[in-house]
């Protein structure tokens, strides 16, 4: 069974296998490795000191509500060892507060990391010019933001962004990406359930995406922002400014399941209001990097 689980984990480059891998890797015992800094020896058995916040199922209890979501991330190799694809997925992310809800069915980020960034001009004999960044894209399908008491709902049909990652990190721990974003949103009247207005941004938004994460995965911080113009069926072109930021720190782990505290804030683009929250986050399923060390008593 353990061999089967490891075999599946090796195939985690495929999206479907990644889901299975996260569950199995989190649930099954590991081989011994005494020198792994992510595992601390103990007379009752080794325990983890590192976690992978990008591969987890999390449940949130916030200052004004609850939340949950699934995050997956994995690296897909290429024929060239200097090139790899870093894929991140957020599935069924939900946050419900008193009278409001935010949800995203799927959000993905796909970055092609290369040690040799370049642009090819395919005119005549192709020519290659050096570029100091990685190339990537973001996709978000089916987001919902709104008032559960009968007010308006903002339905995000699709959002896409073409990004360049200036950090050129070979891992998931650092990101400094900028780019152009397009989005298609529908503002739905909560009472009649009909569309009140449609909003389209045809790559008319500038996007910023920052992330930093400690090597142990115990601390992480991120900031995402969009600034630009959106065309709406009710008012035509209008300004669009939106931002989300969050800092998270794991404080304790219960049965090797980390419990973290996080502080977040957002600038809502629809009404240009600021909101913030503090919460606790439990990850009942999470990938633990490295391998379990032998206990002292073994």
């Amino acid at each position: 069974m353990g061999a089967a689980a490891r075999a599946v984990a090796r195939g985690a480059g495929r999206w479907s296998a990644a889901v299975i891998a996260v569950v199995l890797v989190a649930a099954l015992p590991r081989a011994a490795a005494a020198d792994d800094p992510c595992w601390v020896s103990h007379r009752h058995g080794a325990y983890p000191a590192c976690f992978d916040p990008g591969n987890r199922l999390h449940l949130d209890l916030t200052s004004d509500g609850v939340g949950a979501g699934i995050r997956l991330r994995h690296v897909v190799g290429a024929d060239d060892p200097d090139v790899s694809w870093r894929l991140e997925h957020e599935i069924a992310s939900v946050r419900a507060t008193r009278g409001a809800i935010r949800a995203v069915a799927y959000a993905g980020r796909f970055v092609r990391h290369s040690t040799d960034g370049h642009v090819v001009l395919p005119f005549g004999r192709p020519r290659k010019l050096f570029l100091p960044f990685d190339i990537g894209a973001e996709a978000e399908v089916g987001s919902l933001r709104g008032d559960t008491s009968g007010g308006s709902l903002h339905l995000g049909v699709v959002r896409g962004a073409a990004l360049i990652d200036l950090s050129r990190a070979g891992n998931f721990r650092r990101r400094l990406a900028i780019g152009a974003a397009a989005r298609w949103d529908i503002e739905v009247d909560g009472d009649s359930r009909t569309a009140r207005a449609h909003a389209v941004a045809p790559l008319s938004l500038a996007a910023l995406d920052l992330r930093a994460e400690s090597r142990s995965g115990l601390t992480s911080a991120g900031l995402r922002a969009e600034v630009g113009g959106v065309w709406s069926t009710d008012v035509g072109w209008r300004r669009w400014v939106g931002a989300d930021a969050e800092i998270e720190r794991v404080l304790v782990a219960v049965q090797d399941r980390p419990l973290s505290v996080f502080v977040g804030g957002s600038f809502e683009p629809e009404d240009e209001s600021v909101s913030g929250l503090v919460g606790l986050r439990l990850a009942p399923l999470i990938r633990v990097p490295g391998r379990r060390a032998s206990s002292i008593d073994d």
Partner: protein
Amino acid sequence: MAGAAAVFLCCTAWPAPALADGAAMPSMDPSRPVLCIDAASPDGQRWRVQCDENSKTCLWSPDGEVDRSGVVKRDLERARSCTPAPASYLTERKTGGYQLVRALPDAPYGWERDERGRVYQVNFDLKRRLYLGAAWAPSRVAGETEAGRTTFDFGLLVWEHLRRSRSPTRHRLRLVEGEARLAPYSASLVLAHYDVSRHYDNPLVRITTFFGRPRRSDLTLHLGTWVEAGGLELHGEDQGNARLWKLATGHLTIDLWQSADLESYARARAGVGFEGASQDGLGDRSAVTPGGALESELTLDKRGFHHLGAEIEHERPRYIEGSEGTAERTRARVHYEVIVIALNDQPLSLRLSAGAEKRDDIPGLADRWALTAQAGLRFSLWAPPRAQ
């Protein structure tokens, strides 16, 4: 001692490495073996060498990426491993009358190298990609021109796979593909599309005639299927927003022409779909929609840079709830896409299209031909080299 003498002979009698014009240099054949010779040049460079007995020529290049002065700075990317050979190998070839020619290092299929040995992709499969684009999309309806209209289009996943066999089969999958247009507003989205083309090695029917000498005639039908689920169209009209949900559509296809790899085709398809429509103030309607289309997709070059497509489609919704009678939808479109640049081997393409549409299924839309055009750019992610 003999080795040192061989190196001396090689390096004094044959040219030293220097950065040359890549356009004038031949490339090593990636399908033939490559030898590596240590200290093959006067400055001790390791060379990749590929000799051809027929032309009495040895192609050589530094075994690494070089800077502008010709000094090796890093290993070659996407390079095959080479077989070590002694320096005397070159001396023996020189004695045998071989000519030594500076060349570009071998690159895998779909890739090339410049004069410094740096690799880059020159062959793209736009049938395997994620894309995001924006375009200028003027339209003309009932004598009124909307010259300032723009659009953005997207595809979360475009994936095609060819299963090679005596009867090859190509599967085409597209997820979350659509576009949103503004000023005036309309949008369309298809959550899932799948179609399959097959080239049947055996004829569907063979007919033997016995008038005089028996003769056989084969009737070959390359049948396939075409299905879409989760289609949505939105139109902002003066009479209220209109929504058209194409819940599921299934067509049978007949390929009238296929390329060998089934990537290019011309086909006819016909079938039926189930849809629901609603409009502010007018209520909901449901319809069963028979429809058919003639369509073609052509990849015009081996490197996958040029793509041409055309489509004529007609649908006739028959309302079964909320309304009576039938409606008509007819549209025709031709589009062309060409890759103009690649950023980190991810292509940016220019897309041009022109089309016409006439429909009477949505009250408020003019029941006259609407002419549309698009000119814009698409950024594609993934797009690996096309299959050989």
